[in-house]
């Protein structure tokens, strides 16, 4: 499981970084999305990987914490997802506005002259 997860994070971030370095604004937004998925998975893995372990402990008395998943990274991921979703939506609006103003989807608002 560890190798699958780390491969997934690696592939997502590599594709994300490649895409945000591209000149088209749509590629940049997809790249940012992929990067945020990679980061979210990474936060999740920081709570250690557990299989079929609940995150919520029963009420009262001492419980063995090793039999439960760490709930904090899950809460952090939830916050991070909401924030990155909102900012990506905002970025999409700016992207469309830029396309409308400049008539091109190049990130600099103008095409580079062909040599």
């Amino acid at each position, binding site marked *: 499981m560890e190798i699958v997860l780390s491969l997934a994070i690696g592939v997502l971030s590599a594709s994300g970084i490649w895409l945000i370095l591209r000149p088209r*604004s749509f590629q940049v937004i997809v790249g*940012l999305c992929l990067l945020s998925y990679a*980061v979210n998975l990474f936060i999740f893995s920081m709570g250690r990987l557990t299989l079929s372990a609940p995150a919520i402990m029963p009420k009262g008395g001492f419980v063995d914490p090793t039999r439960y998943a760490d709930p*904090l990274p899950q809460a952090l991921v939830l916050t991070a997802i909401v924030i990155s979703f909102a900012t990506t939506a905002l*970025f999409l609006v700016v992207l469309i506005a*830029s396309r409308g*103003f400049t008539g091109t989807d190049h990130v600099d608002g103008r095409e580079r002259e062909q040599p």
Partner: protein
Amino acid sequence: MSQHLIIAPILIPFVAGALMLLYDDRQRAAKFWLSLIATGLTLAVAVALLMRAKLGASEGAENIGFYLLGDWAAPMAIVLVLDHLAAMMLLLTSVLALASLVYARASWHRQGQHYFSLFQFLLVGLNGAFLTGDLFNLFVFFEVLLAASYGLLLHGSGQVRVRAGLHYIAINLAASLLLLLGISLIYGVTGTLNMAHLASMMPDIDAANRPLLQMGLALMGVAFLVKAGIWPLSFWLPNAYMAAAAPVGAMFAIMTKVGIYAILRLTMLLFAAGSGPSAGLGAGLLIGLGMATVVFGMLGVLASQSLGRIAAHAVILSSGTMLAVTGLALAGGGEWMLAGALHYMVASPLAAGALFLMVEPMSRDDGGIAAMLALTAEIYGAKADLPSDDDGPDGPAIAAGPALLAACFALCLLALAGLPPMPGFIGKLTMIQGVFDTADTSPWLGWAFVALLLVSGFATLIGLARIGIQTFWANDDRDSPVMAMEIAPIMALITVLAVISIESEAVLRYTDRTAQALHQTSRYAQGVLTAPRADDAQPPTPEDVP
């Protein structure tokens, strides 16, 4: 009741901003008064908190205020911490916000929607970032202030702003992801996100985990460096700050300082002398990057042709100075130097903010705003007969406007260049004194820093004087009016600078105590971890018992 005052700088703008969202922009006048009242209240609270931080220290009692959210004991939940540095930054933010708000009333608030709400949310983010004692909470408040700043940067629309906004948002989203990576890495190694808890754990991290932890902290550091506008991560800054509307640019002058604040707070807390093998981590890098940034800002000031671009580079320059001082302090530069730097950090955003506010009245003859509006109109296919009556600035024009403006510009120039009557001079002088007083840092480094400090001040003087001559002397037919509503906040900021200069001794005493408090990390760390819960302090009232 009074212990709840600490959270007021976050709650007041939050409630005001949310309330204003309920009404559309036909209620602009009411919205302005509401935000003026909210910002004024925040200012009053900031003054009260500053007094509390100051008095607490002089009585030798607890000089750090804590606020446990939800009344959970410290490392379990989020804690707000009010110490000297936080109180100082809160006051600085609200003074600048008040000036910027009044200025926006002149014309800018009409150029788009929900200006005042976004402005209040920006204050929520700024005040929260200064107050929080928790890493993830710091990320959340950074996002709040960035989300509001995206909206404010795009305020007024137009091709230039949208293009600069696109770059600004892309850079900041990527930086936020880095911040998140760093925070989660720190949590993975230590299992805590509380800054004080982390500081007390720093000496005991075992050797196998230390590289991971340091990598997490370094990732966070890169994110903060992007936000602080440090070379080579600062190329987005001049375009974005220039494109922003004048009152927004003035607020942005303090946004780079949030990045500096986070770096200063975290490095002093986590890499202090007592933190074992991690002590002084990255000090050399911070000094090098800071000095490179000063050089970059200096060359930018000399090379720029427009006032907006010079102001943006002046912001970069002051960020670089602060970063270099942080690095020197981390390498054992001493408290007195840091005290001078903090004095400088109070004065320079105010001066830079005033400069941003002056950009528009000074360049109106060149058709600054009119050209922008004409461009927008062209894109929408409307006739280019703007500005009509509705788009001109409000309020009475002042007869002696240009003369007043020139006087303000001259004083602002002196403050930014660090020349005698203005407070920039005292900050720089104290820094230079401090560098030579301590033997811990190498003398070559001290000399290099002092030389850079003086040369950069000289470059600022040349760059700004050149623009001033072009605008005020070489231009015979200046007949554009200067509005009372525009010149008043500029004069208020200059007056605040003058007061700082006159009351230098008090300000320096305060910043000196701030620097001492920053060096006594154990006090901060233990204070947070032993902060008393309200529940323990007083017996539960009958209503609390279900």
